[in-house]
């Protein structure tokens, strides 16, 4: 007999017998949630403006360069694979200042960390997952535009197949510099944010480090008298440019690296120091958090 009145059943508590993904799943969840935070996904429209604005601005020159190549052929080369990241350098600190605090500051400030640490992950896993999220996010600026430039140049050529042959040699350098920039900048950014108490302070501190570094580097570079040799080493972006040139070659005219005239391996050393210091700061900061 059909029940015509209809009933709402309280189905009670249901257990869970499905798969448990453990530590691996936990780390994956933090990375993907972190990536969503970096790009303001699932958040208000206002919090999307900055990250997506930065991505658009970073990609724009690649688009222009490809357009010029299509219209004017090989007449001018505004952007090459080598100088692209230096060219959009100003966008990187802004992107980091706006988005890195989203990843770490609230968990620390509102004491959410004990909840994470009561899950199948360790403190190192947590920090590594956040670093991965920030690095992947940064690739949208440090790798995506240069890849676009690459594909644009290939597709704009009259003989695309031959162009692939010409350009393919640049691919390791493109990917290598993109990843290098992303990982080092993410490390610096998160280290600074992890010691700041609030998101606004964190953003300010990130901007300050890069602005001061940039200005000091510029001043030193134009002073002469030996100062130009240390000029690149006060600016993280110049250190990265030097390391890029050391690893993959191709000098950038505007960068203080050329004028410094120091052995190139020093930039590799400086990058190692930057990473070591950043990770040490992160390790100390997160070790001191009570469970």
């Amino acid at each position: 007999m059909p029940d015509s009145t209809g009933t709402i059943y309280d189905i009670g508590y249901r257990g869970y017998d499905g798969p448990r993904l453990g530590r691996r799943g936990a780390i994956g969840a933090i990375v993907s949630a972190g990536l969503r935070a970096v790009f303001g996904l699932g958040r208000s429209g206002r919090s999307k403006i900055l990250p997506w604005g930065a991505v658009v601005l970073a990609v724009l020159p690649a688009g222009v360069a490809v357009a010029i190549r299509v219209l004017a052929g090989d007449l001018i080369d505004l952007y090459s694979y080598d100088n692209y990241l230096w060219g959009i350098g100003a966008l990187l600190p802004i992107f980091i200042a706006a988005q890195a605090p989203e990843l770490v500051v609230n968990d620390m400030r509102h004491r959410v960390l004990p909840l994470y640490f009561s899950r199948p992950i360790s403190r190192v896993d947590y920090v590594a997952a956040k670093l991965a999220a920030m690095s992947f996010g940064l690739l949208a600026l440090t790798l995506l535009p240069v890849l676009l430039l690459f594909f644009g140049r290939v597709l704009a050529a009259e003989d695309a197949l031959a162009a692939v042959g010409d350009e393919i040699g640049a691919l390791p350098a493109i990917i290598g510099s993109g990843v290098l920039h992303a990982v080092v900048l993410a490390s610096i950014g998160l280290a600074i944010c992890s010691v700041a108490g609030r998101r606004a302070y964190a953003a300010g501190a990130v901007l300050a480090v890069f602005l001061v570094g940039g200005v000091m580097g510029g001043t030193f570079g134009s002073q002469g008298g030996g100062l130009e040799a240390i000029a690149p080493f006060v600016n993280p972006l110049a250190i990265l440019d030097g390391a890029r040139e050391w690893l993959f070659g191709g000098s950038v005219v505007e960068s203080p690296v050329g004028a410094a005239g120091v052995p190139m391996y020093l930039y590799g050393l400086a990058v190692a120091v930057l990473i070591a210091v950043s990770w040490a700061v992160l390790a100390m900061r997160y070790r001191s958090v009570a469970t």
Partner: protein
Amino acid sequence: MPLITTRALTKRYPGNVTALDGLTVEIGEGVIGLVGANGAGKSTLIKILLGLLPATAGEARVLDLDAATQGSAIRELVGYMPEHDCLPPDVSATEFVSHMGRVSGLPAGAARERTADVLRHVGLYEERYRPIGGYSTGMKQRVKLAQALVHDPRLLLLDEPTNGLDPAGRDEMLALIERIGRDFGITVIVASHLLGEIERVATWLVAVDAGRLLRTAQLTDFTERTGQLLVETDEDAAPLAQRLVERGIEAHADGRNMVVDIASAGDGEFSVYDAVRDESVALSLALIRIEHRRHQLEDLFRDA
């Protein structure tokens, strides 16, 4: 098999502060009250059980896993609700609980489904889509409980879950804890310094003091009838007790309360009721309450 076993568990913090002092205890299923004054070592014990804090000496096993070496596996099957605030204000309860479900190892789809289930069970409905920052303390406590439940743990560790709640909120939280233990079949360990609350929900009691085990007891045994009747009147009960004693019944008045020994009446429980009724009518005393007196949890500490 016990869910938790500790053997001579000791934790000393730098500066010679001893939080746990050779604690040996076995904890089985049910709702377990972990009682002790603030600083008795309850939170330290919980952190060692979660594998987050190394013990100075001794060993702890949870779900037959070693807390010192298999913490990650333990934490996959245990839910933890800390005492302090631990919620980000700018995300919704749905978003947060579902995220924590995934961080506990659930696949994304399962985390979403279970979040909806669990938030309904803890009593969060329309408000679950709003940012947590705007929630009342009671609602925040429910979110904290939900994030501990979302991955269907076999064991729940709740650290002072009624902290900061008003009396109505306390009642609701305690009812929820009782339901989780009884209907959900999840063993719950409730750490609290409030005996009166533990008494209402716990089936077992583990009392710790200064890092040592004071006593474990099954509360159903413990709160059994004492063979005494507790009578409350609206005025001084002394004249009533006097009259009962004249009838040969053992009775002691204490202000408006009176304790009557049922066995002393000789001819059964009901004659005691009759005597109390008749004598209070004769004295024009209003009776407020007559009940079997049970052991109080406080007695447990008095004995120890």
